[in-house]
């Protein structure tokens, strides 16, 4: 018996529950309700071009903010003692164990017009007693929600790459006369590139396709592409075929991300290291 046969259940399972469903999405995207071939669904995608652009823009913004915020944290964690690293990684991961919807819901209490932040600002006297800073139901609130929810997904892959970074390489660069900026620019940054790529993928993909954050924090006036897809599958006005076509675009986006990831790393366990 060869041990590779142990992967048979896996191959069957993933075939039936990931590969076949993907094919079904493609099939739905190119057919109408009767099952006949049509390009009408694909043609409808253009109606939503604006929504795609908005979603990609907000997702990209959130990703950049996450990267900028996460990089120093990941770097400083990776330079600590082993026990300290373990504790700090746990502190970063812990919020993810609180229900994601509830955490986002809690931001509503913080951001709304009579929310905690506005109450605090009033108490400080920064704003008048009846005034309130408009925060909830704005683009900014959605981006904040994304940054908040996906920040750990940026910190952890960055950290896991940086933790493997050999201190002696940094010391060598310093010995050879590099200043702090040069050490960062020429040694740390290039060596952490795989972490950046997997972090960016892990934040950007869920951020672009989210439909809960925009609903809870953006109010009803903001529609992201995830919201549009959701309405195509749930409720009265649903249309599986158009929904499938819209999802197809997201799938292509995912494939682009995957091929980018593979280019940087050989695509085996860049995600695996993050929780170890």
């Amino acid at each position, binding site marked *: *018996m*060869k*041990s*590779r*046969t*142990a*992967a*048979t*259940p*896996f191959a069957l*399972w*993933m075939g039936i*529950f*990931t590969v*076949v*469903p*993907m094919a*079904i999405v493609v099939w739905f995207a190119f057919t109408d309700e009767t099952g006949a071939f049509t390009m009408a669904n694909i043609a409808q995608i253009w109606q939503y071009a604006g929504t795609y652009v908005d979603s990609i823009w907000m997702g990209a913004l959130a990703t950049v903010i996450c990267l900028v915020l996460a990089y*120093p*944290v990941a770097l*400083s964690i990776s330079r600590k003692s*082993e026990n300290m690293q*373990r*504790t700090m990684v*746990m*502190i970063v991961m*812990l*919020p*993810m*164990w609180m*229900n*994601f919807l*509830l*955490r986002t*819901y*809690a931001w*509503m209490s*913080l951001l*709304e017009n009579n*929310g*905690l932040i506005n*109450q605090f600002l009033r108490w400080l006297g920064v704003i008048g007693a009846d005034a309130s800073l408009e925060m909830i139901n704005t683009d900014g609130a959605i981006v904040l929600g994304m940054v*908040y929810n996906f*920040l750990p997904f940026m910190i952890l892959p960055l950290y896991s790459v940086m933790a493997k970074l050999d201190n002696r390489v940094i010391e060598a660069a310093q010995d050879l006369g590099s200043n702090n900026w040069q050490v960062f620019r020429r040694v740390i940054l290039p060596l952490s590139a795989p972490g950046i790529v997997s972090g960016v*993928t892990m934040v950007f*993909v*869920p951020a672009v*396709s989210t*439909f*809960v954050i925009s609903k809870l924090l953006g109010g009803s006036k903001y529609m992201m592409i*995830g919201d549009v897809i959701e309405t195509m*599958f*749930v409720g009265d006005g649903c249309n599986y075929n158009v929904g499938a076509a819209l999802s197809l675009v*997201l799938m292509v*986006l995912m494939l682009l991300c*995957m091929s980018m990831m593979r280019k940087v790393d050989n695509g085996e*366990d860049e995600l*695996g*290291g993050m*929780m170890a």
Partner: protein
Amino acid sequence: MKLLSKIYNGIIFAFLYAPIVVLIVYSFNDSKHRVKWGGFTLDWYKELFHNELIMEALWLTLQIAVLAAVISTIIGTMAAVGIYSMNGRLRNLMMGVNNIPMVNPEIVTGISMMLMFVAIYRATGFLRPGFLTLLLAHITFCIPYVVLQVMPKLRQMNKHMYEAALDLGCRPVPAFFKVVLPEIMPGVITGALMAFTMSLDDFVISYFNSGASAQNLSVTIYSMTKKPITPEINALSTLMFGTVLLLLIIVNIRQVRDLNKQKERR
């Protein structure tokens, strides 16, 4: 510089924990209002246990999480062992397939399975959206996490140990259980724990695959957020958070102890 980085980390951690603190504090709030403080109370904890909707959803969530974790751990561990012994192309293909649910937008994973289940249901009357579809979907997105946790442990393992066991007359399957499994056990356990927590917390995929009869906690919470939420749910999440915190601390202490033991042995 050191102080600066400490302050910076402090701010980031405060940002990560601010909403959680809000949730916990307001679970003791003696007012139905979301942001007004009406004094300390434990009423929400009492009412939580009498709220059938939440209790049923919690029970279902736990059932799904345990089943999904166990099944995905078995399939995933076997898969890691199998894939590890594959070469080049086949291995890349398998890892590629394994990566699909991880890189795919959750909403796409969710609707793709939903479309398949709906198609099967329409054609055969079997697989009505409910407990079973929810479980199948959860197992599917949990498997990759297990594979990715077990894989590195296999790579760290000394290959010759398994061969030695075979040379000494052990059959492959007992050799796996006696030699390989103990070595990769930390990865298997982490994988199982990850699968469990992923399942526990999942919303998007559950939302599309649960149907009206089998709503897990996240889906229930989502339907509740459309109206003003009652603080019972804050109480529940505080309890769950406390449980996870406790578990993590125990696991962490155990890991540190193991590490120290290993150091002593050297």
